[in-house]
């Protein structure tokens, strides 16, 4: 990291070595990661008192996998997240294909604002609004209503990375395809789409994670038989902390962490081009 060892502490004008920055960053990462690590560590704790470490054990994981309610909730979570992420990514991809082009048309800014709406508004507001909407229409609350709610708030999570990927593409490649006598349809299937696939997959995985982790929308739009893992965990936490919750929670954390790493890996080219953040 240090290019010149003689400049280590030499010059106060070197902003890289200002005092406090490193300490603040270390404290920050401890604050962010320690609670997660403690939770995971405690899930392997043999003891029932949850916070005092006694010995290593996989019992709570065994109990969690043997619990039919948990398996049922996990199944619901996976069904909802799969349907919601595939549907929202399909909708988002179609829209991004048109919205990413440079031409301006009436309402383009407005449409972009609408696509960002589900992530700008605090989730509780559309959740209860949709609850009233479905109730007025006489819908039965269950998996179907939850899936509709999830599709809507997953759209921006899929849309933004796909559009970014499209905007980062070299327009010359499309022109090159046209020069080589590809018609627009061929150019799309042979040139644009293959380049876009990593962006689409990245958006799909993000939408999947967001749906899998959702609590508020599922809580208000759910009904009998649509209990997901977060809803189940919430119910358990309310009645008291148990080591089983630690085990399921840790599994959910690890699943999200591996999925997001996958998504960022898939979308990495676009980061390199546009800079991170």
């Amino acid at each position: 990291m240090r290019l010149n060892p003689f400049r280590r502490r030499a010059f106060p004008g070197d902003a890289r070595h200002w005092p406090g920055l490193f300490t603040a960053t270390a404290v920050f990462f401890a604050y962010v990661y320690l609670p997660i690590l403690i939770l995971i560590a405690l899930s392997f704790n043999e003891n029932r008192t949850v916070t005092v470490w006694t010995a290593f054990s996989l019992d709570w994981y065994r109990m969690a996998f043997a619990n039919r309610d948990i398996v049922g909730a996990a199944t619901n979570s996976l069904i909802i997240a799969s349907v919601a992420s595939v549907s929202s990514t399909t909708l988002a991809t179609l829209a991004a294909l048109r919205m990413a082009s440079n031409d301006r048309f009436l309402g383009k800014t407005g449409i972009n604002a609408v696509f960002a709406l589900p992530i700008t508004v605090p989730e509780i507001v559309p959740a209860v609004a949709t609850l009233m909407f479905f109730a007025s229409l006489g819908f039965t609350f269950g998996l179907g209503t939850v899936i509709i709610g999830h599709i809507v708030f997953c759209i921006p999570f899929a849309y933004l990375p796909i559009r970014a990927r499209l905007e980062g593409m070299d327009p010359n490649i499309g022109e090159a395809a046209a020069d080589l006598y590809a018609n627009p349809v061929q150019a799309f299937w042979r040139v644009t789409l293959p380049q876009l696939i990593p962006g689409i997959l990245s958006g799909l995985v993000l939408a999947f994670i967001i749906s899998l982790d959702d609590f508020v929308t599922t809580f208000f739009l759910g009904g009998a038989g649509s209990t997901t893992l977060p809803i189940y965990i919430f119910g358990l936490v309310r009645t008291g902390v148990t080591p089983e919750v630690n085990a399921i929670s840790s599994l959910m954390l690890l699943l999200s962490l591996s999925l997001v790493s996958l998504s960022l890996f898939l979308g990495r080219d676009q980061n390199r081009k546009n800079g991170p953040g």
Partner: protein
Amino acid sequence: MTRAGKHTLFRILLIGPALLAITVFMIVPLLLMAYISFRGRDYSGGVLWDQFSAEAYVRLFFERELDGSLALNLNYMFIILRSVWLSFVTMVISLAVGLPVAMFMATRDAKWKAVLVFMVTLPFWTNLLVRNYAWILLLRDHGTINSTLIWLGIISEPLPLLHNSFAVAVGLTYSFLPFMVLPIYASLEKIDLRLVEASFDLYANRWQTMRRVILPLAYPGIVAGCVLVFVPALGSYITPELLGGGKTLMIGNLIGFQFGAARNWPFGAALGLFLLALVLTSLWLYARRYRGELEGGR
């Protein structure tokens, strides 16, 4: 069909489905919510559709006595003020922690930058409920923090860390801190370190350099970060629900309560509309000054 006509049809076919989904299942429900806030309350949990009523808005400030007269009741206002206050505190703490972290990140070389951005982003994608639950384990009477302090002999009785405003502020900061770090980092990332050196060459000290050089460069990121922390904190539901322990309610919980045990949909709708108005106003004020930044800041 004309070329222009084809173009329009193509556009509708591509953008239409997503636009329709958000319009029907989000914008229409929000409009319905505004309408319901002016309808009568059905005590069995629902709405008296044919009855106009501003009762929901009256309820924000007054309580109706048994004889029908109004008495001032600021309990709800108190919850709203607490939500704004807690979100503000969260924002200030996040800024105090986030700014040096962003500066540290922005002054590393490219390889480290990528690693640090990844590490800051990662927790955002993990389950919010689980992350807040982890704080219960830490803050409980027999939790990690109290056990450690007692073991060290610093305290003899556990400190009341959970189920109060402190716990909620800790949880909110924990939930939304990355939203402060990333935009500030983004605005500092391209900073030319020679500017800082030049400032020192001109006999500025660290404090002056900070105030005159770094803060002005970081300013757009700071404003974006403040909005991105304040807005979701204001509308948070899970954190006060879990860490506030039913006593430290925020607007989000008050709204949720109207659709559960309280069965007062028009009041819930009015509160929802109020929260929506607060959020959209702060976003609009922000967007008016910093057009185009909003989309960059995830």
